[in-house]
């Protein structure tokens, strides 16, 4: 029985034992990025770990803040990212990129991309909860940002993006509804994380779809070769496929993976806050677990995981709990009645390949 998601709930569900923490001896590190004028507070992290971090070794503070850490009030988003990245990827050196736009003319996300291009030694795993509607961005901007994400992938950085909190999304084009993909979640060079809920809300059980979990098909990027087989199989076998006019079946499909996104406890401005929900929560959890796997790889002389998707799809999501129940939200109209895509066996555009089962995922990703 539990009264909301805490680190011990996450660690129990994903089969992390108290020994599954960073060794403190490798040069492994992980990072989350913030683009709002909201900050994390060390005192919140300390209180969070006092309340919820008693049964696993963890680091007491963020190792490095890159950019501007203001003195304003803590934000729930920043508090959540730091607290859960450091709870799933426990005892691993953690950086925070704080890019609220140092001057009035700056674009925070662009600032973060430039920081990546200006430092040789970076954390291996980065989690980001930022996203925009694909249709709101110019094609010049989207294509160039995609190249920046490609640069990071070439360097072996694992970039995890939240899939968004509006299900398949919805907008109207020439009077007709369509699903609305988000970017950078739709980039073929990032690993996108969707969201799940417990089947029984107050028990640690199997997971089902969290109806807000962002997912769908890009209208900009074609389907990358690494997901050809998985997406073709989904499209040909899903019994609940929305009408084809609602989505671009040949586009890059996302998310790639998922984790719990519903009912988190967060400490912000010294106050424990319940029921915090969104793929902003699932993304640092998945990121922390990949950092633990990197820890084992680094200690055994192997390179970090890098851009995960080609391997993830080749291995058909081995090491993940397949989420097979539930659908996410979409357009409220007579044709789809608020329902987007539905999960099923194997990959689907709601929860990807599923949620992490740490020992199994470690086994499948440790070698080569």
């Amino acid at each position, binding site marked *: 029985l539990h009264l909301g998601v805490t680190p011990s709930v996450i660690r129990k569900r994903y089969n992390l034992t108290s020994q599954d923490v960073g060794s403190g001896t490798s040069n492994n590190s992980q990072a989350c990025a913030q*683009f*709002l*004028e*909201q900050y994390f507070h060390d005192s919140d992290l300390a209180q969070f770990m006092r309340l919820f971090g008693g049964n696993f070794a963890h680091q007491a503070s963020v190792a490095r803040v890159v950019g501007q850490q203001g003195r*304003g009030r803590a*934000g*729930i*988003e920043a508090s*959540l990212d730091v607290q859960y990245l450091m709870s799933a990827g426990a005892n691993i050196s953690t950086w925070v990129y704080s890019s609220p*736009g140092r*001057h*009035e*003319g*700056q*674009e*925070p*996300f*662009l600032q973060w991309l430039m920081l990546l*291009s*200006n*430092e*040789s030694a970076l954390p291996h795993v980065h989690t980001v*909860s930022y996203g*925009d509607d694909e249709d*709101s*961005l*110019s*094609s*010049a*901007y989207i*294509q*160039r940002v995609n*190249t920046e994400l*490609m*640069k990071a*992938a*070439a*360097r*072996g950085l694992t970039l995890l993006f939240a899939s*968004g*909190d*509006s299900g398949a999304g919805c907008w109207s084009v020439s009077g007709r509804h369509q699903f609305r993909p988000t970017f950078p979640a739709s980039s073929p060079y990032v690993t996108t994380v969707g969201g799940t809920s417990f089947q029984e809300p107050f028990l640690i059980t199997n997971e089902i779809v969290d109806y807000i979990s962002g997912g769908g098909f890009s209208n900009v990027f074609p389907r990358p070769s*690494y997901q050809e087989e998985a997406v073709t199989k989904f499209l040909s076998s899903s019994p609940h496929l929305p009408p084809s006019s609602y989505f671009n079946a040949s586009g890059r499909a996302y998310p790639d993976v998922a984790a719990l996104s*519903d*009912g988190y406890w967060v400490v912000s401005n010294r106050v424990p*806050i319940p*029921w*915090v*929900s*969104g793929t*902003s929560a699932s993304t640092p959890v998945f990121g922390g677990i990949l950092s633990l796997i990197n820890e084992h790889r680094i200690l055994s002389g*192997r*390179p970090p995981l*890098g*851009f*995960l998707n*080609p*391997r993830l799809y*080749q291995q058909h999501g081995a090491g993940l709990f397949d989420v097979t129940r539930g659908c996410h939200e979409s357009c409220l109209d007579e044709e789809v009645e608020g329902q987007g895509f539905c999960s099923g066996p194997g990959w689907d555009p709601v929860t990807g390949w599923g949620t992490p089962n740490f020992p199994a995922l470690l086994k499948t990703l440790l070698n*080569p």
Partner: protein
Amino acid sequence: SYSPEPDQRRTLPPGWVSLGRADPEEELSLTFALRQQNVERLSELVQAVSDPSSPQYGKYLTLENVADLVRPSPLTLHTVQKWLLAAGAQKCHSVITQDFLTCWLSIRQAELLLPGAEFHHYVGGPTETHVVRSPHPYQLPQALAPHVDFVGGLHRFPPTSSLRQRPEPQVTGTVG
């Protein structure tokens, strides 16, 4: 001239209001995304280092390797720098890969440099953030078309978090 981002949404996001035109003597920073080289090759290398069946798997590039690959051509670097210098841009700084250039200009210089742009102050977002943006599209000289992908700092507003509490906290007095 040409418009590098004709399809960029320029409507004001919900919760933001205009505070009027910016003073022409105010300074702002703009980021110029310079055209990169060898992007196709970069894509092939990503595939090679990320595919477990490739002999290159895990043999990642260093930032310096990436810079050698994508660094804009000398012609691009020279053309853009010359154009910015002529416009009075100051304190320009680049990144290791040399494919971004951030410069300080006065609003007057920026509006002359980017015909069509008209800078306004805005305030909004959960923390009442102040930004300077242009509600109108900008243009660049045709000669820069092969050298500049886009200019950052004109249209896109800071992101907001979609994180929420579920169920929504009930406010006293609204409970039925």
